[in-house]
């Protein structure tokens, strides 16, 4: 089976910013993404957990999208202004996908 080169962009972002981020991804031409819940973690602001929380202000989401290598820069440029001011981590990894036309 033929596999195609792609980039996997994973963005861990404050939950409150999730919709704004996904709007930017759509505007940048990203054809699809997945949002995963993050149950807890630790970082420069200390340890945190979603358990028992009722506030939307706390908690993080993971947004994962796969893009063609030539679209990576445009995608990152689109989301950078928002991520610059907010808590979050962006990582990009090389991957392969089966159906390149979907990305």
């Amino acid at each position, binding site marked *: 089976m033929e596999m195609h080169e792609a980039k996997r962009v994973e963005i861990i972002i*404050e939950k*409150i*910013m999730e919709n*704004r981020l996904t709007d930017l991804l759509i505007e940048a031409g990203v054809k699809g993404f997945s949002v995963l819940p993050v149950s807890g973690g630790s970082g420069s*602001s*200390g*340890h*945190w*957990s*979603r*358990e*028992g*929380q*009722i*506030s*939307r*202000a*706390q908690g993080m989401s993971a947004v994962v999208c796969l893009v063609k290598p030539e679209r990576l820069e445009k995608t990152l440029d689109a989301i950078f202004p928002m991520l610059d*001011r*907010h*808590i979050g981590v962006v990582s990009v990894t090389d991957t392969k996908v089966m159906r390149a036309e979907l990305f």
Partner: protein
Amino acid sequence: MEQLFSLAQQNLLSPIILFFALGFSVAIAKSDLNFPEAIAKGMSLYLLFAIGFKGGASLSGYGIDLQLILSLLSGIILSATLPFLAFVLLRILTKMSAIDAAAVAAHYGSISIVTFVAASSILEIQGISYDGYMVAVAATMEAPAIISALWLISRKNKASKGLDGELMREILLNGSIVLLIGSFFIGLITGKDGLSEISPFISAPFKGVLCLFLLDMGLVAGRGLMNAKGAVSGRSVLFGVLMPLAGATIGLIFALVIGLPLGSTVLLMVLSASASYIAVPAAMRVAVPEANPAIYLTLSLGVTFPFNLTVGIPLYVTIATAVIGA
């Protein structure tokens, strides 16, 4: 003074406060007791739905009068102006940056609906009635404080994003407010008949759910305090105790001016004294990410919320009773 001690004792030994204390203390002791997020949110939705519906139903048939309008206006004015007092107090008492101080100030102009629910339950235990429309007053007090604080921030930080349309929509249509106001109007429309239809669901289990919810809030507050070691100074903690007293005093003055009865006066004091930890933190994270959330969440949830729940509410009931009379 005797009444204050008696009320404080009754309050401190009520199941809702004891469950909060249990959650707070086991969180400090690092117990693994936990509520799944979905259950905590479910209980919060239930409480908002029940308090909104009961408030609306109790008001049905009374119509709109001058005192209702004045109460709503008082709520809006209090919410819009208390952040300025909080900001000045913070700048005098602490070395907090202007941005952090303004973000904290927003929380103290807005309200804690859980403190409101706990206060109304304590009033019911005391046999003190209150006006159903105080639920609507609570709802009107959520947003103006955010706008005042964002104005303060925009003066100090030109890079501040401020209030855009999307944020305004999120503030005004946040789920808690929509459910509270929606239930209030459904209660208002359906009246006593509607209430009797769903009373077994919203009346009998209410205090039990409130106990469980406050157990969870105790856990969250205790863990927040443990995780925020060093984030807030002793002077900031002092602010977290002084500001509710100042807010309650101003709330009392407003209540006296518009002639509110005892129960509603206590609730206006509680609303003015309480600090938000649901709607405002979310707005601050979006509009002012530079402000440190550990400061405003620790102060509102870890200091002021427990203070109001244990000491504040009986104190406000005693003062209001002394001023207005039972």
